[in-house]
């Protein structure tokens, strides 16, 4: 446990990059996308913060957040049911007369300035939910304090994918790459077209709470929208901005294709061990019984949560809680989310089935590795 006296609060944006995964956020937001057989994306950043001794965490929800509220409840599963701090969910503070909801971080944070001023923690850690990692923030926080920087931006050396090269800035689709000299951030590039390994911003920042407040106060009145593009980049010369290279395992969900590939990567035990390590990732408990494999089951390279009944043939797949696979069904290279039912004799390959999907007996459903087929929530095939 932490023996440092550095206090930090967490600020999490669960809606960031929703637009990049439209198929998965029809009835939810980025943060509540199911991942790794029994988790939601937000579990990783929440658990990381909690395991790092951060127990005052605010989630700035924007829209489609019913699934997230249901998932988080009182925050008990993350040990965030506290008298002081704990979990706070901040709905958007709409204008008095219109239904306008903020565009991005600056406006969102401006909306909770009175709350931010009241907090006691000296530092704030800001994060999105689509960068999946199991992070110990303690050394990063200590380094930030030691360096005397205004802002520490965490980054990961990652390959920029073809897809990331095609983002549409007019729709607010940004990603940031850093040019770092030593630990000094020399430049922040927006939607860099440089292919190959880049120092990709994890969109996780450490900043003094009072500094954040003053930057937001100042930025908001000047109509700034994007914290990175309009404030950090704008003030690159004025602020002491440092980079911290995070070298642990990361998975970045930026579209359905990467959702599929990052999910499948965890079937490799080396990757799963690197992500889960020794620190627990907490999630909502469902009290399912253990998964049952019947006499007819045949499984190879499968990760499954509790509550499944497997009577068929499953290969290279990820099964979430409560999935049922009937006799003679064949499931290959699939991600089947909670309570999906595959009836006897059905055949599926390269399919992402969202929650409560029913694949009826004898159905044949096929996608491909570059374009997995996605079956929306509660649909019957």
């Amino acid at each position, binding site marked *: 446990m932490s023996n440092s006296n550095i206090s930090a609060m967490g600020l999490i944006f669960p809606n960031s990059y929703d637009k990049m995964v439209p198929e998965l956020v029809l009835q939810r937001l980025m943060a509540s996308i199911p991942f790794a057989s029994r988790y939601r994306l937000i579990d990783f950043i929440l658990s990381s913060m909690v395991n790092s001794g951060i127990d005052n965490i605010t989630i700035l929800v924007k829209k489609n957040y019913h699934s997230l509220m249901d998932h988080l409840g009182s925050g008990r599963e993350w040990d965030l049911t506290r008298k002081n701090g704990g979990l706070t969910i901040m709905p958007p503070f709409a204008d008095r007369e219109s239904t306008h909801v903020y565009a991005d971080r600056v406006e969102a944070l401006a909306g909770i300035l009175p709350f931010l001023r009241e907090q006691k923690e000296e530092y704030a850690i800001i994060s999105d939910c689509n960068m999946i990692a199991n992070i110990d923030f303690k050394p990063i926080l200590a380094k930030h304090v030691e360096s005397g920087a205004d802002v520490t931006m965490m980054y990961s050396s990652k390959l920029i994918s073809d897809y990331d090269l095609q983002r549409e800035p007019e729709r607010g689709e940004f990603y940031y790459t850093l040019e770092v000299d030593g630990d000094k951030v020399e430049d922040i590039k927006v939607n860099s077209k440089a292919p190959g390994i880049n120092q990709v911003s994890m969109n996780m920042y450490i900043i003094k709470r009072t500094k954040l407040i003053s930057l937001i106060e100042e930025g908001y009145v000047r109509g700034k929208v994007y914290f990175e593009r309009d404030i950090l980049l704008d003030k690159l010369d004025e602020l002491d901005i440092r980079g911290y290279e995070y070298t642990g395992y990361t998975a970045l969900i930026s579209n359905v294709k990467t959702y599929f590939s990052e999910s499948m990567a965890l079937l490799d*035990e080396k990757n799963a061990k690197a992500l889960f390590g020794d620190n627990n990732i907490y999630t909502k408990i469902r009290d399912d019984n253990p998964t049952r494999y019947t006499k*007819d089951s045949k499984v*190879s390279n499968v990760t*499954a949560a509790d*509550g499944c009944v497997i009577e068929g043939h499953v290969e290279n797949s990820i099964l979430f809680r409560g999935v049922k696979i009937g006799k003679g069904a064949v499931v290959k290279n699939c991600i089947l989310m909670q309570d999906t039912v595959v009836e006897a004799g059905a055949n599926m390959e390269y399919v992402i089935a969202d929650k409560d999907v029913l694949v009826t007996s004898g159905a044949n459903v096929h996608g491909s590795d570059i374009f997995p087929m996605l079956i929306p929530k509660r649909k019957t095939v």
Partner: protein
Amino acid sequence: MEKEMIAMLLAGGQGSRLYALTDKLAKPAVPFGGKYRIIDFPLSNCVNSGIDTVGILTQYQPLVLNEYIGNGQPWDLDRLYGGVHVLPPYQKASGSDWYKGTANAICQNISFIDRYNPKYVIILSGDQICKQDYSEMLAFHKAKHAEFSVAVMEVPWEEASRFGLMVADENDKITEFQEKPKNPKSNLASMGIYIFNWDILKKYLLEDEEDPNSENDFGNNIIPNLLRDNRDMYAYHFSGYWKDVGTISSLWEANMEVLDPENSGIDLFDENWKIYSRNSGYPGHHIAAGASVIDSMITDGCNVYGTVNHSILFGGVTVESGAYVEDAVIMNNTVIKSGAKVCHCIVAEGAVIESNAVVGAMPDGQTDGVATIASGVTVGAGATVGPNAMVREDVKEGQNHE
């Protein structure tokens, strides 16, 4: 404010017939069915039956049990008024004592029960695997205007003399109680689940305390005294799955029955009667390419590279490639290394079965004994553990432990 009925759960027994499995923990804390402990069943039954106040009487090795119960949140028993309370024996101004018997354990906690001023008290035991709706038994108790009701199961006549038997008339009124009789007059075995009117129970507990010759036991003292006084005593018939898991073989058997819900009748997949447990926090389990898993139950945190057939793996178990597991109950975090054969046995938590070790009766063998490996034990490479073995200490490499 008064509660209609509260539960008192007897969890102090040593469970000496589970030998190595209860060296370090109380019987109710013994793991069961892949992700549960025995006590999850009565606790979940309580909360599913609408009972929100449960006193757990602990005495023997309570550490694991206390930590497991915690504030009762996994069972939804963290309540402002009521909830779950662990009640160990405690020191009083005069006459401090351990719990002398089942009745004495309740008697020492009269003030706990009085705080809730209940009309009824249900007495449960922490060594049974059973899904039962106690509210139905209470409805029966009320309909009969009973002062005492006991849940009974019909058992085969030839086995009846192994049980405490209730002899009842056609209205289910109990006329006689026989404790393990040579000549049974009934085949209604007591399940050790009682509902009392609290005023009656309190009166008899206090009387029993005054009797220096009493063993302070429900079966031997309280129930015979109620009968002597012609109290209104009724037998409530229960016909669902019920298993006393007080012995190694019955515990192993009950686990195996979990694998066969269609025939055995213990269904853990019942959405309407969930069994709750404290969560392990592990990620999903993984069945590697080249592994073979059939007819088994596997839970979070397991990694299987070898063969698992008709077995139950608890959280965090590893079965290495080339290892073979059959008819086995493998508890939390145990590691079975490559080439090991582990069959027809119970392996407790955190054990290590080194490569090429052989544990238990092989499938083609003649014996039906259940080998038992205690928690934390290492069975060395190439060692052999016989079919009826009870292993409490490490078995050295290449050694033979009958």
